[in-house]
């Protein structure tokens, strides 16, 4: 169920992905439409008519715009990607934070159709007309210390048989020179999640395959001497040739989580599944897939790490909303005692390099209601007392566009929780339907609702 084509079918069936039938060229047009769909918080897109060997899709691993009410569920695509029954953010966070490792099943690889080994024939999208075809949302499989691992990639086509890829530096430095590698595109989402998660730890961990199998039922098969996700849509096999400067174009969001290095890969064979379909991300676009995935992985890592930090688990949930470009962290927590807000915010700053702004909400806050979360920042936090700035010596975060030279600066946390020292009577009740109207009134309204045939609203 976690194969990417199964995910896409599921999204189409549930109206969370639509098909664009118009013929679009991979040279700029596909990315332009994918970017616009992402920016508007739209559904996943299946491009039905593009030239090249690979079919393309976008937004299949994205979250929707949490500020828009029409969204069926902000997180449902990502939940579907991990084959979760629930589409709630809490379930998603908990699954990624707590999934145990597992031995992956073995299966024959599906991408067995050989195609001409010319990368330009694949139909990979360029970001702009005349640009280089790009590779996103895939993994590179190779051996590190004689163990097969998968690492996230972002890159472009340099020549018909050469890719230039940005990979985690730890992966690049631990690969043997001229190492045999396989670039897998259209991989099961669990494989991609695990690759990012393991290689962006403070101490990168090559044990990606058991992590992927623990997240969801990823099976593996052998291609050459390399284990790859068996259900990958396309496999580009070859060897690392050199380590060079960075690929062109905007970086993928996961690259903000770790140091990266570039490698060139000479491609000798290309195989695909019949009618292959490969998800792509319009890099640099708000709400693109890579941003949502990276925010989710970092949030889960913080949830696991910080919530065990004090021997109790006061955090209800934590988010790095894609809407804020990963530069802003929202956490819902019990405030254990006066000053705990300061401890919590600074623990988060210590454990993540992405952001320098934290918003703390009460434990009752709803993770699916981003507008309310930000509303609380504006109305519950006292602008004189609850916007707390650190001294100027904090390290520069990686997600924002300022202080990119690494110059230190201040961090900010906003405490939008009720003051623990306040009397209960000081705490203003929220205006809600349930709080505002007694049960008998609500029953009358429900009857009118039916009588007026408003059920479809």
């Amino acid at each position, binding site marked *: 169920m976690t194969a990417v084509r199964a995910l896409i079918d599921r999204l189409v069936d549930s109206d969370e992905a639509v098909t664009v039938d118009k013929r679009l060229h991979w040279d700029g047009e596909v*990315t332009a439409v994918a970017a616009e769909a992402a920016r508007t*918080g739209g559904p996943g897109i299946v491009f039905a008519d593009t030239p090249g060997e690979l079919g393309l899709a976008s937004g299949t691993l994205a979250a929707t715009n949490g500020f*828009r009410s029409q969204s069926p569920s902000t997180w449902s695509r990502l939940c579907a990607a991990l084959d979760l029954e629930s589409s709630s953010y809490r379930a998603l966070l908990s699954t990624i934070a707590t999934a145990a490792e597992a031995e992956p099943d073995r299966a024959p690889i599906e991408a067995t159709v050989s195609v001409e080994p010319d990368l330009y024939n694949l139909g990979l999208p360029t970001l702009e007309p005349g640009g280089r075809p790009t590779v996103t949302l895939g993994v590179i499989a190779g051996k590190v210390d004689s163990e097969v691992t998968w690492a996230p990639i972002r890159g472009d086509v340099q020549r018909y048989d050469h890719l230039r890829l940005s990979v985690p530096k730890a992966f690049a430095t631990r690969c043997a020179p001229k190492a045999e590698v396989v670039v897998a595109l259209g991989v099961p989402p669990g494989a991609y999640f695990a690759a990012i998660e393991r290689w962006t730890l403070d101490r990168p961990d090559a044990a990606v395959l058991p992590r992927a199998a623990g997240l969801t039922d990823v099976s593996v098969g052998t291609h050459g001497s390399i284990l790859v996700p068996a259900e990958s849509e396309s496999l580009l096999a070859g060897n690392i040739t050199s380590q060079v400067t960075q690929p062109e174009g905007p970086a993928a969001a996961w690259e903000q989580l770790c140091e990266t290095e570039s490698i060139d890969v000479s491609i000798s064979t290309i195989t695909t599944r019949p009618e292959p379909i490969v998800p792509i991300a319009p890099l640099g676009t*708000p709400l693109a897939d890579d941003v949502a995935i990276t925010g989710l992985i970092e949030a889960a890592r913080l949830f696991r790490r910080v919530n065990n930090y004090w021997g109790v688990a006061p955090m209800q949930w934590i988010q790095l909303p894609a809407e804020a470009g990963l530069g*802003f962290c929202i956490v819902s927590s019990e405030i254990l005692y006066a000053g705990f807000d300061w401890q919590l915010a600074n623990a988060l700053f210590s454990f993540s390099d992405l952001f320098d702004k934290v918003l703390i909400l009460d434990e009752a806050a709803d993770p699916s209601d981003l507008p309310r979360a930000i*509303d609380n920042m504006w109305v519950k936090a006292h602008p*004189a007392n609850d916007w707390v700035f650190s001294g100027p010596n904090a390290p520069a975060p990686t997600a924002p566009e*300022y202080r990119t030279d690494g110059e230190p600066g201040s961090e900010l946390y906003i405490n939008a929780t009720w003051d623990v020292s306040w009397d209960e009577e000081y705490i203003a009740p929220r*205006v809600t339907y349930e709080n505002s109207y007694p049960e008998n009134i609500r029953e009358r309204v429900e009857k009118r609702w039916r009588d007026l045939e408003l059920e479809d609203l």
Partner: protein
Amino acid sequence: MSTDSLRAYVDRLAAHGDLVQIDDPVSWNLEASALTMRLNEADGPIPLFRNADGAQLLGDPYRGSQCRPWDRIATGLGLSRELSRREYYEAVIDRLRNPVDPVTVDREDAPCKSVVETEEPDLLELPWPFIHAGDGGRYSNLHTMVAPDPDSEWVDWSYHRAMIHDSQSASVLLLAGEQTPNLYYYKYERREEPMPVAIVVGAEPAVQATSVMWIPTGRSEARYAGGLKGGPIELVECETNDLLVPASAELVIEGRIVPGARRDEGPFGDYFGYMHGPRRSMPALQVDAITHRPRPIIPYCVEGSGVGRTENTTSSMEAACVGPDATLGLRAAGYEVECCGPWQSTPRTVYTISTPTKSSERLHELANFIYTTWGMLHVDFFVFVDEDVDPLDQRAVLDALARHADPSEDFHQFGRENMPKVPLNIYQTPSEKGNIQTGTSKAKTAKAYIDATRDRSHASPEADHRALSRADAREILREAGVAVGESDPTRSNLSSTGDQT
């Protein structure tokens, strides 16, 4: 063309399929408001309760749709409801730049004089709604208050809710720092004179829109309403004072806000989504006359429901009326402002201004200008963003705040408790709010602004070299059945914040 009465606006809503009529009797006691809140949350039609104790109730009539909060107000003003945000703002600004003088009509030609009660006017004969279970009383909270400056010809139109106390008295929320409250506290009351007022309930849309705008002191609000309408507002004399009121109104309460008298006001489920307290004293209105149409329509706003994703009249009027007015006002004051718009999920507390200005000195000046004028009491935050960021696009503004506002140098005036605040907030304690005579909090607070414009060195170039324009890409998505949101097609080749593809 603009609708010239609330009834004509209601008819237009019905023609658009935006109205649900309830003919069965409804109670003013929570029931009408409860259904209204449900409809607000569901982005449903506007409810007209045709049988409410001899009158009619209209719930949140100016609530816009959740993606396009200006659309129904555009309908009321005779503009296309399909206008983009930018087109709508510029259309309203154009109208405000061309005021139209009002005309005065005879009493017999004024619909609001169909029924005239001067001997024993009785507020309690009308179905003022009890809006939330925790409220201090029943309210008129969607009206235009007409009040004159005692020292000039200027008459202010404004929007101050009134809590009904008995047949002939109410308390009125007057917060010093706003125009009408200042007239009362610092002129009439100091002279121990009553302030004559008229509360115009169910005025035509252009009048209601004008009453929430900050028309500069001394200017004729009726002229600006005429500009918005695209034709003269018809005014008629009151029965018991010299004020002129919109003749097309559903109902007019004439009276005096008496000096030295206070009545309880609140608590109330307020615009920011919380039930604020404590109960406090506010100036007292003494009613002298009530005039109205037959079976008048009483509009009301279910405050507190226009927060988060949900719209109500207050939140939509912020976006559709205050925003364009503020944009025009700032431009007129000489500031380079592309747009000033509210944070859609949080009415009246935070505004975003898009500007080409990069000068920190100029932004400081701009913030101070706003905070010392119209933004003083309710607004706590301004966020400055680049001119290619739509202030009404919360995603884009949050992105700018997260990725362009450096806590080291772009957050200003936080922590300085030296500015005034209305007591309707929830972050001050009851003792900090106090109960001082002029209706402001006893304790001061901070008014802050955030510079979320890009640094000069990181100014993102416009992405105008795509294979497709954004408009073309959106058209392809539309053809595929995608509702592509509300970005402005006229700005289709401009990049959003962080959009570098």
